[in-house]
């Protein structure tokens, strides 16, 4: 026996011999895998590098987003590694798109810390998106198991409770973003809030980049906004609110601003997506504990959500934000100025509002999802919409939505109140017509014109924004067609 101890104890199995072996062979591919109810499922759009087999690419994605590293490690054998390895179990070519594949991966639920979006996403999107073996990678959809969802709070308030608190039922809510978004003094800013709310809106809103700049520090904004809100509530007899953006450089400052908003009597605060998943979950718990509606502005999402071949589909962000606990999220308008294919937007709305979501490939919903009684998150439609589109908005977006007309309120020639009133009248007449059984989509323009006869501001708005639409092709579109997906 002349061998050294290290030679004698070397691992003999093929699988664990040191070196580099394909991920599929390492155990990250199992075509016969039977998905467990407790598994977390992910669907990736994978563009493998030239010459890389799609199955191997999918296995590599499974490996790199779970336990694997680039080479074999003997320390795997100290773990129940078969359990912790993610399993790629299905690969389909993307319809009509050579070179791209839909890869399905199943993850054991014990890979993820309970109630931690940061931990879950650190696995699923942690390293793998920079992996060289794939040219591009996009996370298209996820199925979050019921058991794991139960470890998340979900929306702090939710659609049902928000409506009960606001005493507003049977119609979409109406909002507007204060414009210009930067530069107004506190006193002028509060004026816009007051005018819009008095004219008939339910909410005004800070924009994503209004925090606490030299031209207006946050206390000024909060104090004047609250004056505007309360004056408008007294003038109309309605509950009103304005999303006070509490986003700040540190979490301590976020809490300070949120507490101040609560003491002032605000019913809603707002955060930006760029503050990060952990901060969002923290403020969502705070919001639940303090009876506060929590509005999320999806600032930054288009940097990774818009292009079809790489990044994260926005429906996944919708899922994560419903788990994280926000009450509102901007989710597209279909007809406005921002990206939004009709079918894709429908899929986002289902993700935010359904009790259970069914598979719907044209809408990009690859997995059935039971939402485990997490509350509903209210979609917000904002960006380049106006009252002349009310029939289309109601048709595409339904009742559970906040329709936000920023320019479409503040840009009204007769003033902000007139702009708000035009929007509210247009909304109410369209809901009335729909409920009466009229073909409101086809007759929409006529219904609005009739209403404008008794509402001057509406007539002015319809004349001003007549024919304004944003007819650009969407970049994020359906892979499985049921109907034409042209922008409207």
């Amino acid at each position: 026996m002349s061998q050294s101890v290290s030679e004698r104890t070397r691992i003999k199995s093929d699988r664990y011999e040191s070196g580099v072996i394909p991920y599929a062979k390492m155990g990250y591919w199992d075509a016969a895998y039977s998905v467990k109810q407790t598994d977390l499922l992910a669907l990736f759009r994978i563009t493998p590098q030239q010459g890389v087999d799609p199955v191997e690419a999918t296995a590599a994605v499974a490996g790199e987003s779970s336990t694997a590293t680039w080479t074999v490690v003997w320390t795997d054998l100290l773990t129940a590694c078969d359990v912790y390895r993610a399993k790629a179990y299905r690969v389909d070519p993307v319809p009509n798109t050579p070179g791209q594949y839909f890869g399905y991966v199943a993850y054991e639920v014990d890979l993820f810390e309970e109630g931690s979006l940061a931990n879950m996403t650190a696995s699923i999107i942690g390293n793998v998106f920079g992996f060289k073996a794939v040219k591009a990678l996009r996370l298209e959809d996820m199925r979050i198991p019921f058991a794991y969802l139960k470890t998340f709070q979900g929306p702090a308030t939710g659609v049902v409770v928000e409506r009960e608190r606001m005493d507003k039922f049977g119609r979409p809510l109406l909002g507007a973003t204060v414009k210009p978004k930067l530069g107004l003094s506190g006193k002028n800013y509060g004026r816009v809030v007051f005018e819009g709310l008095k004219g008939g809106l339910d909410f005004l809103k800070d924009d994503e980049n209004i925090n606490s700049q030299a031209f207006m520090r946050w206390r000024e904004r909060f104090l004047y906004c609250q004056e505007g809100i309360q004056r408008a509530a007294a003038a109309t007899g309605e509950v009103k609110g304005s999303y006070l953006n509490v986003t700040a450089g540190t979490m301590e400052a976020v809490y300070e601003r949120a507490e101040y908003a609560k003491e002032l009597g605000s019913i809603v605060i707002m955060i930006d997506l760029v503050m990060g998943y952990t901060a969002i979950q923290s403020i969502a718990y705070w919001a639940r504990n303090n009876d506060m509606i929590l509005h999320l502005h999806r600032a930054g999402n288009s940097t990774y959500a818009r292009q079809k071949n790489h990044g994260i589909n926005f429906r996944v962000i919708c899922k994560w934000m419903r788990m994280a606990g926000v009450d509102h999220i901007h989710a597209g308008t279909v007809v406005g100025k921002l990206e939004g294919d009709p079918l894709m937007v429908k899929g986002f709305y289902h993700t935010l509002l359904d009790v259970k979501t069914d598979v719907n490939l044209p809408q990009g919903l690859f997995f059935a999802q039971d939402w485990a009684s997490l509350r509903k998150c209210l979609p917000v439609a904002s960006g380049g919409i106006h009252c002349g589109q009310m029939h289309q908005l109601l048709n595409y977006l339904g009742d559970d939505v906040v329709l936000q007309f920023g320019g479409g309120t503040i840009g009204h020639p007769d003033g902000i109140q007139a702009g708000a009133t035009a929007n509210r009248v247009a909304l109410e007449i369209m809901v009335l017509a729909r409920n009466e059984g009229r073909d409101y989509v086809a007759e929409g323009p006529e219904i609005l014109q009739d209403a404008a006869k008794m509402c001057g501001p509406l007539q002015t708005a319809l004349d001003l924004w007549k024919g304004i639409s944003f007819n650009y092709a969407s970049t994020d579109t359906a892979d499985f067609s049921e109907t034409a997906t042209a922008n409207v």
Partner: protein
Amino acid sequence: MRLTQGAFSFLPDLTDAQIQKQVQYCIAKGWAVNIEWTDDPHPRNTYWDLWGLPLFDIKDPAAVMFELAECRKANPTGYIKMQAFNASIGTESCVHAFIVQRPNYEPGFFLQRTESDGRFIRYTIVSYATQKLPAGDRY
């Protein structure tokens, strides 16, 4: 002022024919419909007085319209609203609400400001009508 609670307060007051169509819409959705009235329309007055129980399992809007007429007879000058309830899982709440009668004269609300520390203000909204007279004599 005009109280703008409810789904249709920016439109001219609904006619009975229009109200009936809304009731029909609610019934077709399987919702229960109820009638409530008040002479205290404060925005946070959650509990208006019930006009009987919500009408469950009704087939004909006429039943609701009859109760509305009765409620109007009993409360000729106050606010009356109609609401619909959806009992299905995930909602279990009010899903439609609109005013079907309002007083001829609506005096509105006073905004009471109580100055506090620094620039802090505590706001209280008070209905003029409830300040002057007791319940039942206000409108």
